[in-house]
């Protein structure tokens, strides 16, 4: 119950201090039979308020483990994580998560799906219903609020999932390869839309991906992780304008960032 209170105190603009996310020397080991697998080793990173940070790394670099630790579903073996300044000791209520698949509930309409956090956390229905409609408007699905998920395309479903993740005004939006299952064209569109959403909403975002160009295009900082065990290889500032058209991907600066990140994986022999 102490967790729930901590979560409410950490809503944006409610006196929380420090970065949106603070990961402090997190190590996570799993037992697999007689062996111990180290998924994460001494990972430290932070996301400042309103910042867009991407984590890029190949499969097996512990990205998803880190995400579960951040949400409080896993406890780290050592180290700790803070969100909005409060220590994570169990599942929290002030995080929005978007997974690789939209994970919409087929028996709920689009609007009811967006309302899920309000239902789970028993939040005020009237104010959150209004907010849900606003968010659907923001992701361009206002006309689809009474449809069911199986009437929507993959890209539309993922936009519903994003609206749902933002409903309870989380201190941070965690995105775990959210566009990985979409086709390349839709994926680019979603990237542009996500940037627009981020600029208008003043949301702090931690975005996990294994696409290097996607990370460079979206983030103001890119955390490069290497696998087995998952370690932070470099944290790279992306010095590109906040307003980024898709064409920026053709610029030499963009190419230089991509090449620099790719060099990390070249040096450890991982091609992704």
């Amino acid at each position, binding site marked *: 119950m102490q967790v729930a209170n901590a979560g409410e105190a950490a809503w944006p603009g409610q006196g929380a201090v420090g970065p949106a996310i603070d990961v402090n020397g997190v190590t996570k080991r799993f037992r697999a039979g007689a062996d111990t697998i180290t998924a994460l080793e001494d990972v430290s990173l932070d996301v400042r308020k309103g910042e867009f940070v991407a984590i890029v790394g190949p499969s097996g670099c512990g990205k998803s483990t880190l995400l579960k630790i951040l949400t409080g579903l896993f406890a780290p073996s050592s180290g700790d994580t803070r969100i909005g300044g409060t220590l994570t000791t169990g599942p929290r209520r002030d995080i929005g998560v978007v997974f690789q698949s939209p994970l919409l509930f087929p028996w709920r309409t689009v609007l009811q799906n967006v309302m899920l956090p309000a239902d789970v956390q028993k939040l005020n229905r009237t104010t959150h219903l209004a907010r849900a409609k606003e968010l659907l408007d923001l992701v361009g699905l206002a006309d689809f609020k009474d449809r069911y998920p*199986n009437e929507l395309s993959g890209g539309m479903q993922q936009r519903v999932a994003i609206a749902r993740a933002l409903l*309870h005004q989380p201190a941070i939006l965690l995105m775990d390869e959210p566009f990985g299952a979409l086709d390349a064209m839709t994926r680019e569109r979603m990237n542009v839309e996500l940037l627009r959403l981020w600029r208008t909403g003043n949301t702090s975002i931690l975005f996990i991906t294994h696409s290097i160009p996607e990370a460079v295009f979206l983030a103001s900082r890119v955390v490069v992780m290497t696998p087995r065990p998952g370690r932070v290889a470099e944290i790279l500032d992306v010095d590109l304008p906040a307003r980024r058209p898709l064409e920026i991907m053709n610029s030499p600066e963009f190419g230089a960032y991509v090449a620099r990140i790719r060099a990390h994986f070249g040096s450890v022999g991982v091609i992704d």
Partner: protein
Amino acid sequence: MSEAPPIHSSVKTVSLSIVLFVALIGLWEFAVRYFKVPAFVVPAPSSMFRALYGGIESGLYLEHLGVTLVEILLGFAIGASLGFLLGVGIATNRYLAYFLYPYVVVLQSLPKVALAPLIVLWFGLGLTSKVIAGALICFFAVMVNTIAGLRAVEQDRVDLIRSLGGSHFQVFWMLRLPSALPFIMAGLEIALTFAMIGVIVAEFLGAERGLGMLMQSMNFSMDVAGSFSILVVLAILGLTLNRIVIFARRRLIYWEQRPGARDADPTDAH
């Protein structure tokens, strides 16, 4: 797609299927008369329909149908409820699962109809033994499907609710139960047929009233036309009950009925 298109009901197809039905009945009537098949082996459809009409008109069939229907519905309701509750228990509590599942597996591999004579012996000729036989046979179908349905939930969906601070009860109520509904309804569909089998078999073995008892006594007096007419009543009863479950399934699992409209997407680039 190599799949053949489905045949839609139209005036033409419906009238063709009626013609086929009438022709088959006619062929049956003709064969019985032409080959002079004794009435105690296979009755002619005409004598079967005569028996059916007589039974309905005198009110005899309706009275026994009422008894059998109540037994089936009670057996189904009790068996399905117990099967659902035990399924929920086994799927959500690993101690219950560990200690109870071995018995479940043993009982499941046993042909439950074989228990019917004992049940009639223990619980007598009245309604109780029929309800218990029906409940026992239909119980497993619901329980096994409930367990399978509750367990077939993606872990990511559970994590989603948990990451919002949701409790295990909320995960069950908001996610597991609705996800399991299609499985549970499939179990209920089978269970209703099973309950009917249990009740009829128990009535065969010993009863004072009910369609099974009526059919058994007609068999003893070589009234095969009467037996056939009861089979017709049972077929109509089974079909009606099955339709009701399917209707309930459509209403409860409304989201399954909506056609996918993934191609008709006005906003995504393809």
